[in-house]
């Protein structure tokens, strides 16, 4: 693993955001939320108080079945939603009170994509990640281009630079989207089901890339996923949600218990310890 100083030297113009050492970077403090169609009615969905903390270089996986509140929790962390109670602190700033530009300089979100209306080349797409650093009438300068090139190289997508976004494969597109997020030079990298629609090879590839980036660039990574085994393999911490309740927070080994997972996911399975000390889930056929 390269030292932070070494990897940062490739990144000009680091911006004003402080980069802490081994302190807590992300602190989710008793955050809750309620969706309702109408303020006078009972909420349709409630996310109960959630807490966890994460350091630079760590990957946190949010796991749970559909409608368990994973994406809602991610939006709360991103500051896109204001919590009903509690708060999310990123290096001491409450995320949902940051101005849009300041927030985008600290938090990058990789979402399930929306289709592009007009064709764009991969490099144009990646340069969009520099938007939070530009004034409204500014054109991208050489620094921006250098940062975009580095970002593409870091995700192994330099060769895609001149390709059209609608003509590359799903896995390639996910890399370009990730490169755009890196261009934001964030402290916190959030991903909402990034492995959806990817084949198994591309899934492993993406998680391995995230692991490397978290280590090299000292990002804190929070990823929402359905992939139990990928999360077990690559996450430092797991948050297990069910119907808006946070059931467990901890290392994959401490959260992955057979009874618990069987109850949450309504499936018969076994959990075994892998040779690297990480748990492995095997689904059993229902007879």
């Amino acid at each position: 693993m390269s030292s932070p100083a070494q990897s940062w030297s490739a990144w000009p113009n680091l911006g004003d955001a402080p980069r802490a050492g081994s302190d807590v970077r992300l602190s989710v403090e008793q955050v809750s939320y309620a969706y309702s169609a109408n303020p006078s009615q009972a909420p349709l969905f409630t996310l109960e108080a959630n807490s966890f903390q994460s350091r630079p270089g760590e990957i946190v996986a949010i796991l749970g079945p559909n409608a368990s509140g994973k994406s809602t929790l991610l939006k709360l962390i991103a500051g896109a939603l204001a919590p009903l109670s509690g708060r999310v602190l990123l290096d001491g700033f409450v995320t949902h009170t940051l101005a849009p530009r300041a927030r985008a300089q600290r938090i990058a979100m990789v979402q399930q994509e929306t289709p592009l209306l007009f064709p764009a080349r991969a490099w144009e797409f990646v340069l969009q990640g520099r938007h939070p650093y530009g004034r409204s009438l500014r054109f991208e300068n050489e620094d921006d281009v250098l940062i975009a090139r580095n970002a593409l190289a870091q995700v192994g997508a330099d060769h895609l630079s001149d390709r059209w976004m609608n003509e590359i494969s799903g896995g390639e597109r996910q890399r370009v989207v990730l490169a755009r997020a890196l261009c934001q030079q964030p402290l916190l990298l959030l991903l909402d089901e990034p492995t959806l629609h990817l084949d198994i090879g591309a899934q492993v590839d993406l998680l391995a890339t995230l692991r490397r980036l978290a280590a090299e660039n000292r990002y804190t990574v929070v990823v929402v996923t359905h992939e139990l085994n990928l999360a077990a393999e690559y996450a430092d911490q797991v948050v297990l949600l069910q119907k808006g309740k946070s059931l467990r927070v901890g290392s994959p080994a401490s959260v992955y218990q057979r009874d618990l997972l069987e109850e949450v996911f309504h499936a018969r399975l076994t959990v075994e310890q892998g040779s690297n000390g990480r748990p492995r889930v095997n689904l059993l056929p229902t007879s």
Partner: protein
Amino acid sequence: MRPITLQRLLLQCGILALVLFAVVVVALKLGAVPVSLYGLGRDLLSVLLRQTSQLSSDYGMIVIEIRLPRILLAIVVGASLSVAGTSFQALLRNPLADPYVLGVSMGAALGAILALIAEPHLALPAWLAALFTPLGAFLGAAATIAAVYLLGRREGQIDSATLLLAGIISSSFLSAIIMFLLTTLTGRDFRGMAFWLMGDLSSSLQSSLRWVLVIGFLVATGAIYTTAADLNLLLAGEKEAMHLGVDVRRVRLVVYIAASILTGLAVSVSGAIGYVGLLVPHVMRLLFGSDHRILLPTAAFGGAIAVVIADTLARTVVAPSELPVGAMTALVGAPLFIYLLRRRMA
């Protein structure tokens, strides 16, 4: 990687400005009364040197007093409609959006007509009277786009087909109201009004209205241009734009108001000229790419060029009679709209 630079923008705008100049010269020359290029150059020079009393011929007067103001009007109207169309396309995430197709032009026309009807009954100060019709048109445009936006939503999302349908229905409903108002209005020039509704640049403007038009165009276009980089991201979706640091609400409000102003101004002086705001941005995207920092200024030039050409054709093809310019743009625009729609559905 070839990011956009200021030099590239200036170069492209320079080329388009030259094309516009050439088109204007040809438009000055063509018409019911033939004018030689030499005489034209001499007359223009004398106007520039402020010696308008020494025009070389009677033809000079036709060119300077009649054709030139009309061409300048076509330039501002074309640029306004084209910038408005570009903005609506980004704002509504719909490449087929255009003030005319969305019914916004008819809304502006209704607003303008209501203002014309109401004005004699209100003892307005002179400055407000000059502003009153464009103001009515602006309010009509703003109300229509809000209504079409709300009608075009399904389950909280803008649905492309529903939006276009809502626009077309609103347009026909509003034109029915306009027809009702026009037929019940006595003492008005109905034929002139019907001509104006189709899009017409032949009416001469009061000088105060000219200034309202030019200043309104510059301010509204400038306001939209400050959001150019944001619009690029907004096209990728509101959520994505927000996560990339765009203040989505502010951008939407600025573009919504400014595009309504542009439509209102254009319609209040020239009626509903269709398809300019739809086709010109498409052509400019093909030529220069879809980045709004380049698209907005090039679309302004392109719209000016398109409407000057369309108006020149409108007043020459059946000379000495005239077609409404809106008929010219619709003749070209409607088939192209169908083509784009079918390609999109495929």
